[in-house]
């Protein structure tokens, strides 16, 4: 056996490599946390990397996981070695095909980065609820516990499936294993080849559908034979475990790594044994070893083949001395007699009792427990808690561990202080921003250490659920012993804080153990920094006797021309201080890594990074720690004291990073959370905020319209209110004849919620006449303004809202006096989607119900801790929910149907109660005109009166009407989602809802790519753009969804771009909502996935329209009835070359750098498409006009 090569790698990459090398066809659909596997495969395929048989596998991206499974099924049936990667809902969508694939005895392996299935909430994190939902499909199931095993089992499963003909689900824990970087033994291509039996591949080919030797598969069967036919497969399942074991044995011969269907670890005479699968097994194993060393008789059975579950192998794996067996499940099946692994263990024990393998002194008791849902930490302390419970005479079963269940009392107690971390191991925790490169630097460091020393290495990364100002925490372990610790570091001997202002926000030094080293990126030099630290930080440094270093990394980065990328600088400092490698060698290795990472991006980039490395060392200083606390300030409380109780008691803990401590009773039982809590989270993530110059302002309202986070707002109010204004509160007289005498006007910025995107400054059309670089809004440092403007913001919010009935809301100016009911979301700074959502809430928020497809908008709109969908002073506001990714249009249609039914019943009841409530009131309500704000306002008043009357009526009809009366006020149903939903996975449903004729408003936030999962191509991706799965530039044009919708003739359709024409956008929203049938708004949304500074997002929108790429139009079927042309082209024909638009964005430009010839051709083609489409639209407009004209003539 050759010495195996060691690499540091995460499981996604390791598994993808095996799958790629051993397959020919890969059909995928992106889903967290499995997406990287598909992306690796696509990247290799694009680069022409070959598989074991020296051919390049085909990678196809489908429109959904259901589609991917169908394509996989088809490819398998036609004889290709085929695989896919997925997780969570994705796996659920594959289940129908999985039944078929198994029923037809088809060999394949699906690799699953196990992820929580959405229930009361979505979660992107890891547990086994997805694979457990696929148990009934008849697939073999192999869980792997670590990155090493994930690679190994990917191969073992592939080899075994070919022989067994039973398809395999190979799964490993999402994020915890899929994204953990570990040093592992890499399988060589020779080893992989030696595992795959060519004869079995030929057999698979021969079973394929082929017109040259035709047969029929997939018949429909009747009661006479279906049952018997279904039982024909039994021998295959009976043989499967032995085949897997044989395959494992062959693998052991080739690699030296020996696995069994059930692997036992622990005391040979253990009395207490845990049975577990997945990464938790690693934690249990380490804890068992520790406890056995301390004299405890405990053990562990690691499940390697969960299905088919081999009772005999399982029983044989247990020591005969075992008295209690705890089966741990990382999933929850409410209402079952136990979770899946427990049920199998209990059933196995029951079945084995009378069989030959039964060897126990006493029949062991089986208990079951749940742990680790949604990547909840599972630590040695918890394992010890379980083993302690197992000592009890009546150990608890169906327990939970790792939470405090004060509702049902399921949770086991444990001592969180129990730790088995090895003192000699390096444990580092690094706090950074997503944008500063901290994680990529750490990934680099792990590679350097893992591949250049004999240290074992592990890296795990915790990301933010907010997109703007996203915080990352990296957990790195290095040691002389293999690292089996799939849980976060609690006590580190190295803590690095890459952002100075984090000290005010997070309890960073909580992670530092006494005597640890603390590295801080500080704008202050070593002799000045102390007084700028919060009190608690100073105290911790003194108490824990930390060795404290500072470096001004931002200055070094700036000087090297690296902007805000401090990654290589902080990495260099880390190596310089940690002494894991000799300093010179470390520097050489960092430079080598830089060469590998950045080399292809050119000498200029390389040199800048080298310079940063060299400069880092010169700027790294140790701080002499004074003996006393001197600071006058400290960390701020996470939420203000006057926040509502739920926010103070629940949200605040989550914000402070203590959500794990919340007991079950603190959380709602059905996923219901209060609206509008984002306002209590003051994130303070920007250094610069816009400042209003009331002298220069022309009061156009554009700034408020474009603000993605609703932090810049406008009010008009009676001057009399100003008597209570704070001294620095700005105001001027409201311009225009529409205002009564004495109306004041203010534009106010919330300094602590602003993300500093500058869109407002960019859009501001007013220039200072003396100094034209100044506008009515100018960016200024936030820190000196923070307190003052916060006070002003508070006062501003206390001012009354202007009467909606009096505003001209059809204009940009008028609409921006309306209160936004979507605020301070977690969207990216400069987001191009949120201004549309916010506008809808301004116009219709007080009567709006929203179905939101999964994607960016559901994450920034619904990811805890806080909620941006809010309510107005009267307590009215959007009711919001997210069902799934694929079903959003249908979900929203359900709202409409239900609301219409409510309204109909309310009207029926009101008819019946006419005399009791009063004729006049009843008629007024039933005949109300609710076509404008005034009409809706008056109806609300009437309904209020009705409810008062109903409350006094003692009739069942009155009580029923009381619960339905609010539906007599017009409700506005909105179906919101991105292009991935509307163009791809949800298109079938969207199309059906458009065809339904129902009054729903569909808003498609079109970023032209799967933004939330990292830029995969969708059918909205334009020709020539580079995206994942279109690495060489997309070769087909964007689908014209608008045109498809127009073809129905009775759907209102608008294509808008607020950066190009904001008035048009406002008008389209109003018309769409007013239209009594289905409406579709396709909204151009600039996005970070386009690759440019989003402060220029509005200019790009303008260019998109001016180049003819994004023609603005409205198709309003109501106009047909009026004898007018329904198709109104609202923008002019192409007037700037398309290249002027495209080549401002990396998604297009990068292709020119990769392959200029292809880029040129695609640009030409794209330009041609733009012109052709413009002609088509013109013709459409003309032909509609022709259609309408005769009708008009006939009428007259």
């Amino acid at each position: 056996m050759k010495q195996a090569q060691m690499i540091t790698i995460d499981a996604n990459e390791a598994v993808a490599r095996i799958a790629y090398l051993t397959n020919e066809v890969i059909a995928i659909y992106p889903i967290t946390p499995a997406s990287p596997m598909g992306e690796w495969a696509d990247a290799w395929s694009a680069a022409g990397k070959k598989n074991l048989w020296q051919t390049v596998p085909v990678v196809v991206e489908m429109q959904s996981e259901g589609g991917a499974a169908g394509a996989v099924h088809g490819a398998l049936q036609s004889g290709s070695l085929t695989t896919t990667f997925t997780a969570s809902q994705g796996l659920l969508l594959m289940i129908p095909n999985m039944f078929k694939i198994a029923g037809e005895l088809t060999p394949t392996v699906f690799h699953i980065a196990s992820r929580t299935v959405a229930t009361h909430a979505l979660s992107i994190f890891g547990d086994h609820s997805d694979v457990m939902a696929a148990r009934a499909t008849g697939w073999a199931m192999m869980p792997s516990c670590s990155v090493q095993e994930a690679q190994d089992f990917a191969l073992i499963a592939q080899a075994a499936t070919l022989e067994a003909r039973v398809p395999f689900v190979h799964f490993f824990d999402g994020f915890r294993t899929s994204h953990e970087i570990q040093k592992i033994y890499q399988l060589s291509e020779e080893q992989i080849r030696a595992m795959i039996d060519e004869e079995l591949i030929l057999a698979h080919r021969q079973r394929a559908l082929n017109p040259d030797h035709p047969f029929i598969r997939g018949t429909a069967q009747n009661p006479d034979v279906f049952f018997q036919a279904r039982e024909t497969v039994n021998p295959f399942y009976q043989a499967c475990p032995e085949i897997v074991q044989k395959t494992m044995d062959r693998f052991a011969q080739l690699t030296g790594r020996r696995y069994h269907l059930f692997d036992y670890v622990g005391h040979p005479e253990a009395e207490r044994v845990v049975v577990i699968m997945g990464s938790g097994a690693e934690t249990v194993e380490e804890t068992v070893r520790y406890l056995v060393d301390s004299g405890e008789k405990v053990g562990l059975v690691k499940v390697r083949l969960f299905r088919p579950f081999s009772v005999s192998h399982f029983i044989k794996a247990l020591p005969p001395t075992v008295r209690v067996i705890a089966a741990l499940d990382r999933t929850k099946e409410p209402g079952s007699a136990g979770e899946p692994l427990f049920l199998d263990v209990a059933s196995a024990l029951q079945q084995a009792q009378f069989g030959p393998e039964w060897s126990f002194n006493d029949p062991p008791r089986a208990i079951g427990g749940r742990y680790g849902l949604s990547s909840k930490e599972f630590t040695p302390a918890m394992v010890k808690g379980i083993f302690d419970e197992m000592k009890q005479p009546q150990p608890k079963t169906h327990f939970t561990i790792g939470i405090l269940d004060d509702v049902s009392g399921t949770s086991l107690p444990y001592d969180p202080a129990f730790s088995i971390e090895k003192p000699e191991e390096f444990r580092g925790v690094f706090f950074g921003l997503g944008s500063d490169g901290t994680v990529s630097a750490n990934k680099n460091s792990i590679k350097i250490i893992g591949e250049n020393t004999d240290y074992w290495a592990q890296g795990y990364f915790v990301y933010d659920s907010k997109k703007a100002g996203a915080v990352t925490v990296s957990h790195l372990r290095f040691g002389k012993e293999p690292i089996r610790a799939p849980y976060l570091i609690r006590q580190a001997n190295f803590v690095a804080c890459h952002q100075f202002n984090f000290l005010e926000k997070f309890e960073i030094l909580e992670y530092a153990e006494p005597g640890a080293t603390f590295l801080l990126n500080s704008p202050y030099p070593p002799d000045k920094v102390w007084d700028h630290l919060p009190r608690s930080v100073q105290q911790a440094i003194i108490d824990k006797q930390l060795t404290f270093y500072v470096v001004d990394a931002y200055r070094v980065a700036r000087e090297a021309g690296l902007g805000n990328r401090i990654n290589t600088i902080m990495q260099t400092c880390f190596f310089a201080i940690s002494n894991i490698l000799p300093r010179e060698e470390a520097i050489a290795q960092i430079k080598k890594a830089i060469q590998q990472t950045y080399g292809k991006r050119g000498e200029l980039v390389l040199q800048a990074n080298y310079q940063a490395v060299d400069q880092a060392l010169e700027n790294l200083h140790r701080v002499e720690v004074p003996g006393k606390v001197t600071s006058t300030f400290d960390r701020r409380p996470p939420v203000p004291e006057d926040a509502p109780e739920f926010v103070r008691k629940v949200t605040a803990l989550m914000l402070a990073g203590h959500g794990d401590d919340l007991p079950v009773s603190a959380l709602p039982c059905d996923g219901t959370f209060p609206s509008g809590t984002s306002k209590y989270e003051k994130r303070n993530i920007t250094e610069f905020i816009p400042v209003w110059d009331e002298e220069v302002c022309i009061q156009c309202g554009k700034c408020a319209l474009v603000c993605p986070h609703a932090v810049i707002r406008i009010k008009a109010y009676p001057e009399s209110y100003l008597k209570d204004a704070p001294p620095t509160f700005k105001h001027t007289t409201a311009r225009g004849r529409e205002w009564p005498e004495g109306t004041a006007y203010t534009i106010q910025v919330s300094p602590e919620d602003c993300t500093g995107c500058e869109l407002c400054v960019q859009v501001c059309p007013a220039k200072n006449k003396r100094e034209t670089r100044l506008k009515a809004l100018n960016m200024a440092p936030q820190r000196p303004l923070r307190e003052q403007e916060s006070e002003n913001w508070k006062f501003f919010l206390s001012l009354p809202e202007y009467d909606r009935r009096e505003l001209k809301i059809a204009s940009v100016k008028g609409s921006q006096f309306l209160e936004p009911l979507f605020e301070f979301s977690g969207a990216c700074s400069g987001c191009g989607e949120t201004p549309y959502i916010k506008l809808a809430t301004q116009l219709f928020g007080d009567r709006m119900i929203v179905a939101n497809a999964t994607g960016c908008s559901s994450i920034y709109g619904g990811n805890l801790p806080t909620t941006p969908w809010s309510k107005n002073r009267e307590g009215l506001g959007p009711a919001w929910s997210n069902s799934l990714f694929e079903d959003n249009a249908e979900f929203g249609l359900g709202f409409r149907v239900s609301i219409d039914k409510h309204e109909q019943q309310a009207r029926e009841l009101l008819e019946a109660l006419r005399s009791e409530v009063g004729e006049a009131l009843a008629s007024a309500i039933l005949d109300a005109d609710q076509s404008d704000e005034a009409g809706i306002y008056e109806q609300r008043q009437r309904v209020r009166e009705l409810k008062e009357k109903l409350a006094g009526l003692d009739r069942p009809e009155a009580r029923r009407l009381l619960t339905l009366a609010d539906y007599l006020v017009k409700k506005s149903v909105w179906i919101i989602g991105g292009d991935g939903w509307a163009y791809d996975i949800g298109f079938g449903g969207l199309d059906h809802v458009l065809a339904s004729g129902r009054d729903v408003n569909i808003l498609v936030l079109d970023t032209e790519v799967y933004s939330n999962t990292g830029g995969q191509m969708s059918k909205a991706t334009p020709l020539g753009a580079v995206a994942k799965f279109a690495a060489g530039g997309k070769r087909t044009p964007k689908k014209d969804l608008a045109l498809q919708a127009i073809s129905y003739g009775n759907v209102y359709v608008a294509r808008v771009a607020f950066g190009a024409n904001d008035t048009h956008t406002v008008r389209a929203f109003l018309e769409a909502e007013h239209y009594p049938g289905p409406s579709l708004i396709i909204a151009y949304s600039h996005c970070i996935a386009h690759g440019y500074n989003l402060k220029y997002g509005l200019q790009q929108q303008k260019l998109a329209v001016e180049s003819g790429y994004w023609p603005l139009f409205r198709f309003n079927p109501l106009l047909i009835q009026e004898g007018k042309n329904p198709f109104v082209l609202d923008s002019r024909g192409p007037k700037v070359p398309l290249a002027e638009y495209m080549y401002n964005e990396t998604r297009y430009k990068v292709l020119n750098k990769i392959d200029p010839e292809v880029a040129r051709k695609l640009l030409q083609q794209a330009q041609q498409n733009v012109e052709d489409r413009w002609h088509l639209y013109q013709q459409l407009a003309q032909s509609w006009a022709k259609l309408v004209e005769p009708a008009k003539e006939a009428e007259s």
Partner: protein
Amino acid sequence: MDLSTTYMGLKLKNPLVASASPLSRHVDVVRQLEDAGTAAVVMYSLFEEQINHEIRELDYFLTAHSEGHAEALSYFPEPETYNNLHAEDYLEHIQRLKQAVDIPIIASLNGVSSGGWMRYARSMEEAGADAIELNIYYIAANPEVSAQQVEQMYLLDVSTVKEQVNIPVAVKLSPYFSALANMAKKLDHAGADALVLFNRFYQPDIDLENLEVVPNLTLSTSNEIRLPLRWIAILYGRVNASLAATSGVHTAEDVLKLLMAGADVTMLCSALLKEGPGKIAQILSDMMDWMESHEYESVEQMKGSMSYKNVAEPAAFERANYIRVLQSIK
């Protein structure tokens, strides 16, 4: 009739050269230029600054939002290699043009720093360019930088490029030198094989409605030949470098005047952009008509005939001519 001329050692069939413009981006247009009689083509400029900017920008945006969000560790696929990071497409275009036409192709390099663009000069030579035109685009806006420093920078650039390549190197100048004749001499010494007079800078304009400074590209008119005409006349016979006239060449008369002032070649841009490659043929034919009717035998014969050195009253080129011009209006 012999229209041939020699420009920095290149034997040209006539003195009409297409100056740097977008026309050279298209192989078929360059073919049309050749067919119309153009003697040589200067390619569109390779902007060093822009290449560097694009490299930095690409590096930044490919990485900008990566590793920040659990669901999206990156936003772009990164290719194995970039085939056009350092203007490889420009270099390939030189090759394409060289294959497509027989007339000399002069590559144009626009840069501001010494050092950075040397690699491109060498690559241009390797790609087959017959000569290089250096376009040193520098607006001396910094009050701390003296005229001497600016001149030094030009000279250093020229001598460095000359050291790198064996093909001729022309320098395209701005007219904003205090002592242009002296500067020309220094450039001559630094090794410039030709001086191209002058660069027409994009002059900024103000958009009154939007209060913005906007670039404003206006095409030249024949009036503009007077500036190069004066300086070519002054420099003729006093520097070794060839002289090229550019700015405002629209008609055969313009060409004839500049040749008589001492230009070895005249370069056309606006005229071609406005009227297409065929314009060259028309100018050539007009030129020959004029030469025939005025009994000129060759371009060489007239070259420099009206230069400072050869005119009856050379002071006319030096004088401010203020009063006489005003009087002539009367």
